């Protein structure tokens, strides 16, 4: 069954955030959905760009108060 995983990276900073996102997303199974929370726009961009480059589907990127939520589907 497809999983929906929350990955909260708001307390992490560069260079750890992208490494962590990559590790967590790579551990998911095909079709799983990840919701990644990050604290700033540049981390948000790096993670969504990387995720797309890897062939995952970025479903939504939204700003929620002082953080960002990236919703993606693992390829």
């Amino acid at each position, binding site marked *: 069954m497809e999983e929906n995983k929350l990955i909260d*990276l708001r307390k992490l*900073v560069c260079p750890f955030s992208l*490494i962590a*996102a990559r590790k967590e997303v790579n551990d998911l199974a095909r079709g799983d959905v990840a919701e990644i929370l990050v604290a700033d726009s540049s981390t948000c*961009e790096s993670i969504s760009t*990387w995720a797309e*480059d890897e062939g995952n589907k970025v479903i939504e990127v939204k700003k929620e108060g002082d953080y960002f939520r990236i919703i993606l589907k693992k390829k």
Partner: protein
Amino acid sequence: MGFCHSMVLCMSQNKEIFGSEKEIDELVSSVKTVLREGAKALPVEQARKMKGYGVFTEIIEGKLTFGARIRTVGGRVTPDQLREIGQLSRRYGRNYVDITNRQGFQIHFIGVDDLGEVLREILEIGLTTKGGCGDTPRAITTCPVSDVDKEQLFDVTPLVEKVNRHYYEKWDVFGPSAIPRKFKVSITACPYLCSYPQINCVGLIGVTNDGREGFTVTIGGGLSSAPHIGKHMPVFIEEEDVIPFLEAVVEIWKSNPKYRPRHRARIKFMVDDYGTEKLRRLIEARLERKLEDYQHFPESRGFNNHMGVHGQRNGDYYIGVPVAAGKATGEKLISLAELVEKYTDGGDVRVSPQQNLVITNVPGENLERMEKKLVETGFPYNSKWAGNIVSDIASPFCSSSRVKTKHLAEKIINYLDQVIRGNEINVRIHLTGCPRDCGQHWIADIGLQGKLSSGRELYEVTIGGGSSRIGRIIGKDVPAEKVQYYIGNILKAYLKLRSYPDETFLEFCDKYSINQLAEFMETGFRVV
């Protein structure tokens, strides 16, 4: 002993404050932990301690690699340091080095297993990556020839070194866990303001007041998607008061919770809210004294990137060496270090804010040979345009953009070197890959901001920016393959239509409307 050497010594005397092996080991082991076990394995406190260490994740061809940004003090490096940077890039970074517009170096392609070694070697040669990125007090920009050039009002390099050292000594006040966002300062007494003080949070511009040397202030500058030119705070500050002044600004900034959310945290927004007068009163209250008035703002005398050969105060010469869009190789840096050792009188190398290099202390009798050798090193010494073009890093190293600005910059240089010749054209072109504007396109004569849209690289073109003004947008969605021709067109129009031979490109642009300029850009070859 020349200034550069004493500055390097200053750094190596007390290495620990500029970064330590312990910090590097912790950083690398934390990276490995997260790589292996994910986010939860890294305690938040541990991650926080390593903020702003000048290390970037760069996913290249699907592989996780790292970039390391090396800070300098005032852009100065000894030949030994330059050689080491070159060697590091050859060993760990595919022989590639970026020269940055905050007067540092960036090495890429570093594998996780080499990261610790690279960072340790950088420390060992008296340089550091600590404070190279993130919410830190960034490298202080300054004129690369402030100590040797004849036209400087006075030498600011000792002050740059002092303030830089102070940042590290007071990391609890200025460091990444203490300040809300990055803090950028420029200190200069260059009549051309070549380090662009007005795009910094605080710019200190050298002036004299009743025969005393000191600084007047510009405050609240910054580019990005909300570009601001710093405002003149009409005060006069003597050298010994600079650090208390900067501390007061930082304390005021930190004390207001309004400037904690990241998107409002830059000093420029605080200056918008307070205005310079109120801010001055707040600073005076912190300092518990009045600041001296200084009404005159020392405008830049024009653009000067210090390229080519110039006489020094001591009778020697300095030579500005263009680096096309800041792209260098380790090999070229090593060759340059050798030339400096061989043909200068204890000279060194400086990184300029335009991503070029400057060699100092060349005796007159070695000039000709040095120039000949410079051509042989492969630096574009004879290019008219290479020294005038600045570009951000963008793709593939920066994941905020998918456009290849540096690649386009090289194409523009090659094209303009063929079609627009003549030394009288002093036009700066800046490229940037996303609205964060690391390439400072807003203040360029011709600025380009790229984006990728449905697989196509498109650029927004701005025109008429300067060290104290933001350019106007004259073109949207110009395809990358057309950019060089558009720039060629408008430059040809400028050459043909300027009212007198000394009319600057800025003056030319001011005579025309946006539509007319856009027309020149698209059809310039027909106009002329």
